[in-house]
């Protein structure tokens, strides 16, 4: 978990830093400085347009993290209330409608639909966010409902009902704080899946558009030069792997730490 937290923190820091400062401007092309190896001036060398690789990677981290973060936000923002609502009306028609709707979205091959959305509404980071975010909604709805259902039978919830509190108030005051752990762990997992999905979409040209630096886009550019400049394909890929690995380790660690039952069987 510590490794995961450190890896995630490094990328988050790089992304945050890139908002105010990158070593070299990523919008400035300098063909005379193209495809350089690592040096003091360019720590990771330069790409085929003479842009500093470190700066590109930092700005790429910003794009990836922003897209995945907002997509998780959509999932949490819409999915959790829906899941809580379904659990509060468990067995009723509202529960049925929400859960069937969820099943429906689950039945779709997510990436195919994401590709469709970006294809129809034009490729952009915003549409990538929407496409990834929509598929986060049923995930969080399901986790929220699953976590909330057993809580509704507990005494303190009963007490709150006896006290005359409505279902929505109980969900917000008593249920939500108690399923926060589950949601945090799921958010970490969806976040790492979002990073991978964003990379895939921008790799096939349906994500963030140039000149916005993005890891997937950098890999797509590198592929055309794989015979002559293979080193360009390495760094963006490694960046994706380390960030996703970091998030997954963090998620696993959080799950184990937050769930006492799992501590025992942790192997």
């Amino acid at each position, binding site marked *: 978990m510590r490794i995961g937290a450190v890896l995630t923190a490094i990328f988050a820091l790089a992304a945050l830093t890139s908002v105010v400062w990158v070593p070299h401007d990523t919008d400035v092309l300098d063909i005379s400085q193209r495809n350089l190896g690592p040096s003091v001036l360019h720590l990771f060398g330069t790409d085929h347009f003479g842009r500093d690789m470190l700066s590109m990677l930092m700005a790429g981290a910003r794009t990836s993290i922003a897209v995945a973060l907002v997509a998780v936000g959509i999932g949490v923002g819409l999915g959790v209330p829906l899941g809580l609502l379904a659990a509060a009306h468990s067995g009723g028609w509202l529960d049925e409608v929400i859960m069937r709707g969820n099943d429906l979205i689950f*039945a779709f091959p997510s990436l195919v639909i994401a590709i469709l959305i970006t294809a129809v509404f034009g490729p952009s980071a915003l549409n990538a966010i929407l496409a990834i975010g929509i598929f986060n909604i049923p995930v969080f709805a399901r986790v929220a409902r699953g976590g909330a259902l057993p809580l509704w039978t507990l005494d303190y919830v009963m007490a709150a009902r006896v006290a005359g509190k409505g279902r929505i108030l109980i969900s917000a005051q008593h249920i939500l704080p108690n399923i926060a752990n589950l949601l945090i762990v799921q958010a970490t997992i969806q976040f790492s899946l979002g990073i991978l999905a964003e990379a895939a979409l921008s790799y096939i040209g349906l994500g963030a558009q140039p000149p916005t630096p993005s890891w997937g886009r950098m890999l797509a550019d590198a592929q055309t030069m794989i015979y002559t400049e293979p080193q360009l394909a390495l760094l963006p890929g490694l960046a994706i792997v380390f960030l996703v690995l970091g998030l997954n380790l963090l998620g696993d660690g959080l799950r184990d730490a937050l769930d006492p039952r799992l501590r025992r069987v942790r192997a």
Partner: protein
Amino acid sequence: MVRMILTRLASMAASLLVASVVIFVMLQAVPGDPAAFMLGLNAQPDTVAALRADLGLEGGLPQRYLAWVAEMLTGDFGTSYTYRVPVAGLVVDRIGVSAPLAAYALILTVVIAVPAGLLAATRRGRPSDWGVMGATQLGIAVPNFWFAMLLVLVFAVKLRWVSAGGFPGWSDPVAALGALTLPAVALALPQASILARVLRGALIDTLDQDYIRTARAKGLSRRATTIRHALRNAAIPVLTILGLQFSFLLAGAIIIENVFFLPGLGRLIFQGITQRDLIVVQSVTMLLVFAVVAVTFAVELAYTLADPRLRRGA
């Protein structure tokens, strides 16, 4: 049992119905007239009108939707706007690449994941378990298209064992399989990593059960117990995941086919998108959704049959 199948069939039909409406409506939102696009700038208005009628673009939305669905059901997927041939013909050609690729990747997934999962579960907490868990953790984190690029870099650019992409056709089966090998490996790696972890978890759960102790106590060897009793009971979560993975393999294939320039369904959709050939996108997407829903149904059926408890419960 029969009731369960009927309920599932009904919900499958409902999923497909909603999917078809969503796909249809989404693609209607795209600006531009395909008929005008096909005929170019100098087309006469009446020619455009005639082609519109020919392509089934006349009439209101509900009417066009019903016509599209009715035609899909009879195997007529419309006429491609750019290739000007029936989409069904294009699809048949491309399935000849995509289906073997997905099957190849699925086989590789199982072939890699089952021994790895078995090894990790039976040697829990020992170095081989740690090795499998570490490798699969990495396997999940690697984007398959980047892994594909690395494979190209090593086996095509450096070693020159295979070509970096393209597909020679099935007239030479050995060359065809060779061309599909790197893509299949790239597709299988992340899926095998997930499956191996699921299998390990499921096996560890079953290996702790009383009936495993009983089997061991009656003198069955460790290997026989694991394979005959534990593996069979761990099969249900594994089958579920495998069914889900099919949809990831299909979607993943869209990207991987683009890495290797394979003329499959994924590339067909992608070309349809870039060339604004919307009928191709619409019909092929629907076909993919149908494939995924059908496989999910088949998997549910399979594990209901495999698990007597579920058969009674439903």
